[in-house]
């Protein structure tokens, strides 16, 4: 167990990696490796911009860690902002990429505004979008995904393995919907806009879509 | 053979003909990779050379790349210069 020697945090700009000041180099490397492997669904297909904070690394260590990460993800840019320990910000205790379990009560990121074509929002907890998700936009969460608007892009809930996560939207019309490892697409030929909010979840090994409350279907 | 469309067209020069002519000129410039600045440079050199032989009116001096129709019906590019002369210098005049 590597404990909390390294903390990963996804932001709109990219990935922030906080390195604990007391950790030794070997455990830092293995923690980074562990987390990047676990976080794979978040980094697929995009160039990730890295920001290192916390314990400063020397040049050789910087090169090593970048090389290590390059084997698993595509790196857009890397900046090293580590500072010697002062009253450095302590990492959020809940920040680690285990399979997120807080889908009934857990940390949630709130996104205001529409997620547009080409944008990707990812977070290890739950995500609530107060806006639409347009075609080409992606929302990837370790927990639940709620869209207070129209979901027309891609949503991937339970991305780190939680099969109980749900995706719900006022208007559920995703191009692709995934929960944990299961994936589904909008049925062919269906142009009807849903008349009521819907929720999607895994029921007995099937990915189903239902009205948000039973009895609401017309 | 009467071209009915041309016969009934109200406009002397249909817009497509105007377009074709403009396009041909533009492409001469583009293909020759000749920036209009290039013409500026040529202009400068021509003024220098000709000024040895005659005094020219620089304001009215005009130079452009254009097309002209040859006898065989094909079009060729031509560099056309319009050089207003103020007066001849002695070098050019016949002496003795």
């Amino acid at each position, binding site marked *: 167990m590597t404990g909390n020697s390294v903390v990963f945090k996804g932001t709109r700009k990219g990935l922030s990696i906080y390195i604990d000041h007391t950790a030794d180099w070997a455990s830092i490397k293995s923690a980074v490796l562990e987390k990047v492997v676990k976080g794979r669904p978040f980094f697929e297909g995009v160039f990730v911009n890295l920001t290192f904070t916390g314990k400063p690394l020397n040049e050789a260590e910087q090169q090593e860690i970048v090389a290590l990460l390059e084997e698993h993800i595509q790196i857009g840019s890397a900046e090293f902002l580590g500072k010697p320990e002062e009253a450095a910000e302590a990492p959020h205790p809940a920040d680690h990429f285990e399979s997120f379990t807080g889908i009934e009560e857990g940390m949630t990121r709130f996104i205001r505004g529409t997620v*547009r074509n080409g944008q990707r929002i990812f977070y290890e907890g739950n995500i609530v979008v107060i806006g639409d998700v347009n075609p*080409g936009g992606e929302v990837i969460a370790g927990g639940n995904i709620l869209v207070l608007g129209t979901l*027309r892009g891609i949503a991937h809930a339970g991305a780190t393995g939680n099969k109980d996560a749900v995706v719900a939207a006022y208007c559920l019309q995703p191009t692709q919907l995934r929960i944990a490892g299961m994936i589904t697409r909008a049925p062919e030929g269906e142009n009807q806009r849903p008349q009521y909010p819907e929720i999607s979840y895994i029921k007995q090994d099937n990915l189903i879509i239902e009205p948000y409350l039973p009895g609401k279907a017309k | 053979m009467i071209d009915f469309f041309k016969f009934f067209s109200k406009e002397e020069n249909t817009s497509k003909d105007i377009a074709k002519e*403009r396009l041909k000129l533009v492409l001469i*410039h583009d293909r020759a990779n000749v920036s*209009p600045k290039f013409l500026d440079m040529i202009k400068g050199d021509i003024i220098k050379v000709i000024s040895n032989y005659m005094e020219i009116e620089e304001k009215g001096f005009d130079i452009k790349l254009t097309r002209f129709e040859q006898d065989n019906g094909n079009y060729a590019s031509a560099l056309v210069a319009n050089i207003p002369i103020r007066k001849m210098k002695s070098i050019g005049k016949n002496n003795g």
Partner: protein
Amino acid sequence: MGEVIVITSGKGGVGKTTTTANIGTALALEGKSVVLVDADIGLRNLDVVMGLENRIVYDLVDLVEGVCRLKQAVIKDKRFDGLFLLPAAQTRDKNAVKPEQMVKLCKQLREQYDYVLIDCPAGIEQGFNNAVAGADKAIVVTVPEVSAVRDADRIIGLLASKDLYNPQLIVNRLRIDMVKRGDMMNIDDTIDILGIDLLGVVPDDERIIVSSNRGEPAVTQCDSLAGKAYRNIAKRIMGEDVPLLPLEAEETFMDKLLKIFNLNRKKSI
């Protein structure tokens, strides 16, 4: 102090250059001083659409490289008072200019003209970055087609990342007949997805092609509906409140007949 407005779309061929030329001309006709900037380096077109292709001596790249002065590069359109054009270079490419140079240029132009309209090239790379670098506001042009709207959405997201918020939308090439048949998205569908304010709607109009052939912007043709739409857009840019043109044709007898037999029911999306 003037306003620098970039006209962009993401997708190519939706009418950015035509829109820039026509809005610019219309603003000049309203008495404003306008400079049109062609930022499509390597594929210049604004000069041709304006009919000024034979007047080019220096271009944008010459200007930022210091080969010439502003007054030498900017072309005065002799037909319209207050209308000027800064053409793009044809024999260079988009890497010949850097965003910082565009910021400096726009600062200069802002001081001398009421409106600086920048015709943005298609795409999202260097050309786009250059075009938006010095802009105060953005106009997004799209047509009511799936691929164009998707690209517009992407562009709106990218504009936000460049601190250009609240761009305004122009829906171009609308065909009312197709909208009525349910074969073309209507304005509301487009706005619903893009979620930005509507600046104007320009109907599909053959006169646009004719005016491009002649190098005479459509706003000067009184029988052009698109020209009228562009003139209204110019007025809105100046702050006037102009209602949208009634593009709906009268319901024809055929429409009524089809309605009776339920044959033209609008498909829902």
